[in-house]
């Protein structure tokens, strides 16, 4: 009886001591910096090449480097000059320019093409038709929008809204399901 009592009290004391001892580990003092492998979408790029004249090419980029959204995005190169009544092969690219060198995120989006759709909406009298030319691995295959044909009409100018829609398990070819990962306007001048 006495022996057992002593043991139980002893064990309890040992447990307490052990717990207090392990409590001195202060891992909160090590602040982990952003994960090296992760990429942040900061830049949307349009690279347009005239289907009949490779020398007629232009690149536009829309850049927002601030993760807190408190600074204005850099729109100094967010416009594209295209010729009237022409067809352009367009590549859409997403970049992480918060790092040096900048990293291309487009391959990851291509890899998960079944979950992504890019939606293009010409605004304000812009004579532009956008046809997506690439397809994902859904059955039947659905368009993605990383590769496109821009078909221009008569001279005009206006904004082209580009949305990257994230549509896990619900992609149906329309823009409605899912959520928006990027929502940018490029100014397009058709001359």
């Amino acid at each position, binding site marked *: 009886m006495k022996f057992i009592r002593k043991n*139980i009290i002893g064990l309890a004391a040992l447990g307490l001591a052990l717990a207090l001892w392990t409590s001195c580990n202060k891992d909160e003092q090590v602040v982990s910096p952003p*994960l090296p492998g992760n990429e942040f979408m900061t830049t949307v790029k349009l690279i347009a090449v005239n289907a009949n004249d490779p020398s007629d090419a232009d690149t536009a980029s829309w850049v927002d480097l601030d993760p*807190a959204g*408190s600074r204005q995005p850099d729109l100094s190169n967010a416009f594209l000059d295209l010729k009237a009544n022409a067809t352009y092969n367009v590549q859409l690219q997403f970049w992480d320019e918060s790092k040096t060198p900048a990293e291309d995120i487009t391959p990851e989006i291509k890899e998960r093409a079944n979950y992504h759709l890019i939606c293009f909406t010409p605004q304000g009298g812009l004579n532009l038709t956008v046809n997506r030319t690439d397809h994902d691995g859904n059955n039947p295959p659905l368009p993605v929008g990383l590769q496109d044909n821009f078909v221009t009409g008569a001279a005009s100018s206006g904004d082209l809204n580009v949305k990257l829609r994230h549509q896990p398990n*619900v992609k149906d070819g329309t823009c409605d399901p899912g959520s928006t990962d*990027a*929502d940018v306007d490029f100014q397009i001048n058709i001359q």
Partner: protein
Amino acid sequence: MYCFTANMIMLKSLKPFAGKAKGIIIIICLSFLTTSLRAQNCSLEISGIATDETQEPLAGVAVQLYGPAGKGGMTDMSGRFVFDHLCPGQYRMTFTITGLKPLSKEVMLRDRDTVLRIALQQDRKHLHEVTITGKRIKGVSTLASTTLSGDALAKNQGKSLGQLLEQISGVSVMQSGPTLYKPSIHGLTGNRVLLINNGVRQEGQQWGEDHAPELDPNSAGSVTVVKGAASIRYGSDAIAGVVLMDPPSLPDSPGIAGDIGLEAASNGRKGNVTGSMEGAFDKSLKGLAWRLQGTLQRAGNFQTPFYYLDNTGMAEGSYSAQLGYHVSGLELNASYSQYNSKIGIFAGSEVGDTTDLIQAYNNRDKPLVRDRFTYDIQRGYQQINHEVMKVDAKYRLSDFGDLELSYARQKDLRQEYSSDIAYSSDPKVQNLPEDWFKLITHSLDLVYDHHSADGFSGSMGLSGETKGNVYQGLGRIPLIPNYRDYGGGAFAIERYGRGKWLLEGGLRYDYLWRQVYRYDINTLNDYHSAYDYHNLTGTLGATFDLSHHFTMDANFGMGWRAPNPEEMFINGVHASAAQFVTGDSALKSERSYNTTLSLHYKSDKLKLDADLYDNEIRNFIYAEPIGTRQILGVGYHAFQYVQDDVRLLGADISGTWDVLPVLSLTSKTSLLRATNRTRNGGLINMPPARFQNGLTLHRESLGKLMQPYFTLQNVSVLRQGYIVPDQEQLLPPPPPAYSLWNVSMGAALPVGKKQLDLSFAVENLTNKVYSDYMNQFRYFAYDLGVNFILRARFSF
């Protein structure tokens, strides 16, 4: 107040205590009883205190004395009883109160007065009594409180803590979809409601609207809701109330007992199994007792009246173990518990920007997600692991004083996986959670409780706590920083009960020091900063027992809460609400000044309770809308944490009327008006008026069935009309009023000497389409449709 004077007396009269415990006693105020010797016959006295299993005094216990003199009475407001003018002889005493096991005791009275301490155990097999009719003199006893135990808990097996407590008037839930419920007391939730599980403050990431308490209500033997500011006893965060979850007490008598409960529900095709076993040893191991308990739960996609909610399944596994040893005046306890869950987040709630939010709201008739049943939980889920280890020693210094020292360590690990997989070619990064939080807390508490037969009782204590939080995430800015908190407090509460009166008063001081560790986003250099908070709180209360039928409680109490690190430092997007929230590190402590008046009427057929409260909160912290913010063109509503003075004015009214021996009517009403006094408007996320009315048919027996019952219940909730105009403008309007019907029926079936309890319930009987204002997912989908639930419990 009494304590200080008592302390002075104490120091002078410490001599009788010389020896064993003097060192400890010096720091504590103590009152004790000296039993005097009396030579004369027939002037002897039997007195004492009746308590519940947690050693809290119980008022209203019927005490009967048999022997040379037969006498009867009740314990008074401080749980004490006295029989005087007794002659020497052999007496037998019985103690009874509804809801607890009756106790009988033999007393041999020779030439000395006898002082008894009676602990009544919970009656596990008691079927229909839901609440204990007497009053438990808990931490702050003049504050309104309600206890659920025994059958009230068994009947709700499978429900989360929030859903379980929602049946108490004045308690509502803050909900995020069908599986995440946070209890809300008198309109406040999250860090403003303190959860104390097995005597340990639950320390998790309670700040998020979708961060439900990390615990299994099945492990509790009783759950008490204390309504009102109660920092005096429980420290910071008890702004609106406290939820106390206590495990059943360990058994005394040798042998093994246990029970197993099953729940099957149609909605979500949910199953829940819970079981416990307990035992006590005999002979050389006398005094050693144990208890093991565990719960497993699994659910798939839940269902609204006409579609499934994709990815709302959940899996949960929890267990706990307790070991206790008591010998003469010493009681040692050790316990360990673990809670693990994986909870899917409704796929339709993953909105990107404000346009998505409005689109989701407009598509509530058919959300643009898969409409199917599956148990599979995909990305867009939370994974939570919480473990608590506690050791506790209680030493009885005298017949009426206990000293208790307890140490607890808890670890909370929360991992949130968003439906977006990180843009990385590295599969390791892709499989990481978006947010990862680890919070480790150590706490040490020393409490001295005393109950003396002269009417004084009280407790005082010291507490210390330290916690360290580590955050890792995939974002460029940490959602919340790493931090270390050191907190300490000292308190004293004293009560005096005499006849019809119980008076109570107390004081507390708390100090909190916080060091925050961060890095600069641009330079990635680490830096740290320190913050400190200290608060003095107090309470003053009285209970008046006007007659056997009518009792009144009045309490004024204070509460405080330091701003939590989220409110100070958050800088990021709140998923599923299209909000970008910014913290403010200069926020001050929030303080509440709460006044409660409780009126209780009880007769043979009628029981009425009304709690009226006025909770004035200075520097109430909330997120104010400040416009919009765009990240890569994706638009969010921008919110900033600010502080204002607010006032919560409300009433909880409940009643039971036994119209006929077989028919009872019950009614519960919760009313609240929450005002921002600084800006003269309403407050966001405050529960609208809620009414629960029911009728129950019951009998003692029906053939072989024992205590069969049938209940029809209506729950009606009004529209929340008093809101913040500019805050709510950004979001769809509060949903309209709704009314739901529920039925339940059940009985107990004797199986040999054992008992099988069976019950069947239907929730939302008419499969009504509705939305609840307090459900944060009301923008994306309707609330749940009809649910058929079968429960069985076997005790052995």
